[in-house]
């Protein structure tokens, strides 16, 4: 899927609003904010799946004709006869005790259902992110401050890569490299060879985006006095790039992490479908169609948790990488309004 510039400014969020100068209070505030986000995400899911016309029991039964007794049994088993606020309260009660519930459609505990699919999706995400990072660093380092035509070519390739729909790219890759050339498996088998094409299809657009940001950062840093000083001291160009500049250029990339995770998770849904890979994405699409509330809710909860944790980590790591941010007067001067 094409990357949506939706989650753009996550780090401007309240999650990092608390001042770093009062660690204990800040941590508490953050934890509170995180709980609110998780609660909100699950509540939206609950509302959405109960708003769907037709009722959950019909979705579970599907289009088969069942007797009234069996219908009643299903309603009873899943406590669908209770008022919505009771179902809502009970769900949160179970959640607080760490019980994610049973999937309506798969008949297994939600944790089991997710556990069965998580490995495959995790591998895909890891492959996609790994490809994106490596490709971005290599392209950015190879093209930063180089002659105009090299940068021009890279910039063109990057912007085209962002524009190509990932599902189309996936189909093209599959057709050429699996169906025609037989270099890679046609269906998502275990093992690394089955991961290559999906990882490329998933990671290409983010790689192009990262490479742009990274090159921009590199070129900015390379103009700074401390690099000139390093060069004057006889440090070789490549060494400069990798040792000094990259560390600074990577800063904007870190702020992108939260957004990237979201883009990768969204992308994985489509890529799993294109490459016939089992995984959380495919399962989620099916679960939403079948109104399998406990399953969808758990997936939303996990996504929100990742969002919260990633934002926390980014904010914690950021000052460590950039000493300048440790100067209190430089730390987010425009956040005063919060």
């Amino acid at each position, binding site marked *: 899927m094409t990357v*949506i510039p939706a989650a753009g400014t996550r780090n401007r969020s309240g999650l990092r609003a608390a001042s770093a100068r009062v660690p204990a209070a800040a941590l508490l505030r953050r934890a509170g904010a995180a709980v609110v986000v998780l609660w909100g995400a699950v509540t939206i899911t609950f509302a959405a799946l109960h708003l769907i016309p037709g009722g959950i029991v019909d979705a579970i039964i599907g289009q088969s004709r069942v007797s009234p007794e069996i219908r009643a049994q299903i309603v009873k088993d899943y406590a669908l006869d209770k008022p919505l606020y009771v179902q809502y309260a009970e769900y949160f009660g179970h959640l607080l005790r760490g019980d994610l519930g049973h999937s309506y459609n798969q008949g297994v505990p939600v944790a089991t259902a997710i556990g069965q699919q998580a490995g495959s999706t995790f591998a895909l995400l890891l492959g996609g992110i790994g490809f994106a990072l490596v490709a971005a660093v290599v392209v950015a380092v190879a093209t930063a401050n180089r002659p105009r035509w090299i940068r021009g070519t890279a910039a063109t390739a990057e*912007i085209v890569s962002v524009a190509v729909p990932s599902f189309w790219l996936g189909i093209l890759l599959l*057709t050429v490299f699996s169906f025609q050339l037989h270099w890679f498996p046609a269906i998502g088998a275990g093992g690394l060879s089955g991961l290559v094409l999906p990882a490329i299809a998933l990671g290409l657009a983010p790689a192009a985006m990262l490479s742009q940001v990274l090159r921009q950062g590199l070129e900015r840093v390379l103009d700074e006095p401390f690099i000139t000083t390093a060069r004057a001291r006889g440090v070789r160009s490549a060494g400069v790039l990798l040792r000094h500049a990259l560390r600074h250029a990577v800063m904007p990339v870190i702020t992108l992490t939260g957004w990237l995770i979201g883009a990768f998770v969204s992308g994985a849904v489509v890529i799993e479908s294109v490459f016939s890979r089992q995984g959380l994405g495919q399962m989620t699409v099916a679960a939403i169609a079948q109104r399998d509330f406990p399953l969808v809710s758990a997936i939303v909860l996990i996504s*929100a948790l990742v969002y919260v944790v990633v934002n926390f980590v980014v904010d914690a790591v950021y000052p460590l990488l950039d000493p300048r941010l440790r100067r209190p007067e430089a730390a987010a001067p*425009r956040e005063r309004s919060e």
Partner: protein
Amino acid sequence: MAPTVDGEARVRASWPVRGIRGSGLNLARWRPGVALSFAFIAVLILAALWPHLFSSTDPNAADIQHTLEAPSAQHWFGTDQNGRDIFARLVTGARLSLLIGLAASVLALVGGSLIGVLAAQGGRLVNTVVNRLLDIFLSIPGLLLVLLLIAVLGPGVRNAIIGLAVITTPGYARVVRGEVIRIRGAVHLEAARALGWSRPQVVVRHLVPNALGPVLVLATIGVGAAIGTGSSLSFLGLGPQAPTAEWGAMLSSSRAYFTVAWWPAIFPGLAITFTVLAITVAGQFLQLRVEGRTRS
């Protein structure tokens, strides 16, 4: 180039489409590229408004005797599994793609601007509440949120637009809020306040117009992204319903035939790619122009 990586810079850097800004070289600075992009967008708009200028063939006319025919003088881009003219369907599909991209972006822009101004101007409590709400929406991956919304609202063009708008709104809200806070501190606003202007006057006459410029440019690029995301929704079967000619849906339905006929899958893919590309380049060009003006 700010000497410190302050909050604002982080906002800007983390807005992906903005990252290209200032990289010193991109397609937006390459004049033929910009010209081509604007030309392509002009053609798209013409096709959306007056499709018969380009093709007089009925895009939904099935012809069982001429299915999956390769590109020829009669059918420039060949025919699909229904014997329908792919070129005619692409031309018709332009309207839908532009509609989805524009409508979703306008909705998100309006909604995001209102929320952003509210957050910036509404005091501490409002700001916190809005921030938390935006966080909640941002914490659910975009596509997952759209899938949930479409499950509630049902598939179709209108609901795809609503879904796309909902997931892009928080981004605009954050940027608008940042711009408003930035401009609020600007010298001319201090002057306006000193002159005794009321708060609403300041907001309407100064804050909004100044904050909106950069955001509008951003939205241009957002149109391209929304078209891309919209096509992936159609690909998943959640966009406009058949037999409506929509690029993502055309691509999706052609998959099964790809091993024997490449044209039904290649041309819609190219159409999506070129459209997103042209709009992105045009948006970047506008961005450079706007920023150049602000600086001078």
